[in-house]
């Protein structure tokens, strides 16, 4: 009896504590937000370094010029959309195009608002190292790939050539492409971008041949020059049916998205994030500092901010 009463009391206390009535799961910030009276916002960082660069610079300016405290959370792309709709994070600064999510959250539920162009255009493709192209100039056309399959063989590729794909969170049609273009290749998933980069650098150190799924803009091109392999040209809608894809990837102007409530009531921070817009070169500069020179994201952001005042002043006005 006593036990039941304590349970009731605890549930009652919880109800009081959380405000009576329904608990809205769309309005739950991180428990670490707004600690010690500081204005806090939470940015989602994706696992690639370009996304880290965006967030580092935005975070630096928000903290040093606008007086916010910024939390960052690393989340994969699709879960990040979900987190954004629930208000667990306030903004995604670099989205590579997720039509399903856009329809669900932006158009239907209206819990996420568009934040405009990031200013950077992204492109996915298949790449080989440039030193390999110097040895075999015709390797850059998909039609010739089969002749070179034996060059790309590894312990994991089962007698075929290895096409290395990266993180499971990335947009890829490669398995279907290999099948539909009837290539003598096996897609091997590195499982994370970190593993993929590490492997690419090991190959490059020994000038070994490799064929990999990769994307631009990316800082690694500065360290390991790579050339894109020409796939059948992309046409609007040619990738509509995932099973029948037989074309390359589009060029995507990368987008920003904000939590709808934050976009409305986020004050200076929301206004700033909407105006945030820079170039591929800017992003690569910061990315290279983080990933290759091993500066912390904050140091890298400071370096960039110190030398590009004219660019970011416009975002604050």
């Amino acid at each position, binding site marked *: 009896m006593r036990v039941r009463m304590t349970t009731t009391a605890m549930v009652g206390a919880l109800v009081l504590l959380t405000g009576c009535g329904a*608990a809205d799961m769309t309005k739950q910030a991180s428990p670490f937000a707004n600690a010690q009276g500081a204005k806090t916002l939470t940015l989602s960082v994706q696992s690639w370094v370009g996304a880290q660069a965006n967030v580092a610079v935005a975070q630096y300016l928000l903290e040093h010029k606008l007086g916010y405290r910024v939390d960052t959370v690393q989340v994969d792309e699709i879960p990040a959309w979900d987190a954004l709709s629930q208000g667990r994070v306030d903004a995604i600064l670099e989205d590579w195009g997720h039509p399903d999510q856009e329809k669900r959250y932006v158009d239907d539920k209206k819990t996420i608002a568009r934040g405009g162009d990031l200013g950077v255009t992204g492109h996915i493709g298949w790449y080989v190292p440039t030193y390999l192209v110097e040895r075999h100039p015709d390797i850059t056309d998909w039609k010739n790939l089969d002749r070179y399959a034996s060059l790309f063989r590894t312990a994991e590729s089962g007698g075929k050539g290895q096409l290395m794909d990266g993180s499971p969170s990335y947009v890829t049609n490669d398995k279907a492409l290999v099948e539909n273009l009837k290539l003598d290749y096996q897609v091997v998933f590195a499982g994370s971008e970190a*593993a993929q980069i590490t492997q690419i650098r090991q190959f490059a150190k020994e000038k070994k041949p490799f064929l990999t799924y990769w994307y631009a803009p990316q800082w690694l091109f500065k360290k390991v020059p790579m050339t894109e392999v020409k796939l059948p040209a992309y046409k609007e809608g040619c990738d509509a049916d995932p099973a029948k894809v037989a074309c390359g990837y589009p060029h995507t102007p990368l987008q920003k998205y904000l939590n709808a409530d934050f976009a409305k009531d986020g004050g200076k921070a929301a206004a700033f994030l909407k105006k945030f817009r820079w170039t591929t070169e800017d992003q690569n500069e910061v990315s290279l500092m983080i990933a290759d020179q091993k500066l912390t994201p904050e140091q890298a952001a400071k370096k960039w901010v110190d030398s590009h005042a004219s660019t970011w002043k416009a975002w604050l006005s």
Partner: protein
Amino acid sequence: MATVTVPSPRLALPAFLKHQATRKLLLLALAAAILVPSANARWSSGTWPHALTVDLTEPLTSTSDWIVDNRDSHPLFLYFFGYVSNGVVLSVRAVYLLLLGAGWAGVTAAGALIAWRVAGARLALGTAAAFLACGLLGMWVPTMQTLALMVVAVLTSVVVGALLGLAGGLSERLDRALRPVLDTMQVLPAFAYLLPVVLVFGIGVPAAVLATVVYAAPPMARLTALGLRGADKEVLEAVESLGATARQRLLTARIPLARKELLLGLNQTIMMALGMAVIASVIGAGGLGDRVYQALASVDVGAALAAGIPIVLLAVVLDRVTAAAGHESDAPARWTAWAYAGAAAVAVALAGRLAGRLDWPGAWTVTIAAPVNEAVGWMTDHLYSGVPVVGGTADWAGHFTTWVLDPVRDGLQGLPWWAVLLLVAAIAWPIGTWRTALTAVLALAATGVLGVWEPSLDTLSQVLAAVAVTLVLGFATGIAAARNDRFERLLRPVLDVFQTLPQFVYLIPVVALFGVGRAPAVAAAVVYALPAVVRITAQGLRQVDPAAMESARSLGATGTQQLRQVQLPLARPALLLAVNQGVVLVLAVVIIGGLVGGGALGYDAVFGLAQGDLATGLVAGAAIVCLGLMLDRVTQPTERRAKKGA
């Protein structure tokens, strides 16, 4: 050979065991002779027959859509999950604000004083040093976030675990019902159930805390039940004769008598929860785990290590302090000393506050990233390939893949499905009972029914290879440690570090050494599982009855003879436990190996999580659980006859 002190009576009767095992195998052969032809006639394909699969894609996808569409409006979420979620957020926030409010000086002082009261001056110094090191590494705020998360997760796990344990300890029937549930919870690799939790609670702290509770509550439940059952009968009778009611007996006798087990349960729960701290970062838990995960993204081992060290330090400190609390004799609590300690902590916190030194001073940090990265870079530059005579690590990885992993995988996948099931039964039955054998067979069959037979066998081949390597290395090191005290002392901190270091920290060096593929996944699993195997082996060998050793020595046995004929046979239960733990731990990491090219079920689980694809992720997760159950049963000799009630 005097085997009086050996717990299991079966060891003394190898002939009987052999006889029984033969009988079981004969029975199995008979059953196979009847069943296989008919199964083969109906579904002739070698691989799992399509007719026996159930496709869950459709229902799982629609469930997932339903949850996302109704999460903001359905009463189930508004009035139940929403409250749970809010409750978690509020409590974590409360603890976090308290920690921030106490400031770094206050937290360090409080930690040290608690350690002093519970475990003495040496551990107090160690605790203070550990907290200061977290600050020095520039990780103060993330450490506090992780600590806040841990406090809430551990408290919840302890409450949940203790309630389950209480039920199991007091009622035989509940205990029987609970045991398989707890078994399953413990064998479940954490990665497998992150996705459903995320779907309901969304990314972030609530999901992370709840996933941690699922993972960390079972040891508390088990040990509570064990402690309550193990209470001294005479004391209980004495209390009863004094006319105490059932509740009084529980509160004044059984629970205090179970103190040691309860504290061991707390200790285990804390360790499991910390192990989860990093995995939970994949679903946005924040704190130290998130720092490790973010560093991984920029391939920065040094930064990952800087965030990983505080986790190791927290784990070691909490382990030692709670373990010391368990050993402490039942001296009456001296409240005055506690009061002084509390007052001192408050005073330090206030002093810090007045001095305006709440945040860790930015200037007091040491960066270890650069030298660590240089060391890793040197290692991979010089070991990856072209090492004279032995060849580079990349060559080893290649050979290991072609000569070990490929044959095992192709062998398993090439066998007819019923042959694989028979094989499992033939291994499990002689070791255990017909129940364990049946569970193992059904668990493996379930992966076929789920439609992931081939990837499951792929994962299984990786687990088998990793377990083999782990056991060879682990037994060798464990034997060396048991025979040499100095070596064991040197080994202890190394084992501590490897047991608590987040796996994400060494994923990148492993790829840099072994390339992308299944080989690095196996290597990472070996690193993770090795310490437990070494520890259990060494402990088992050391606990062998000294009298038996003495008599062997007096008969003039050499060191090797002693080891082979006395120590190893007598330590058999410990060695089997080492095998079992090795298997479970390896499975947990082979899944994470999906992040470095391990493929198979691990990749599917990661894919499901990354793409929010419940159908792929949950099926892979369920298959992992089934594999875990199967491997656990196959390697777990039944102890039902040997000891009751555990």
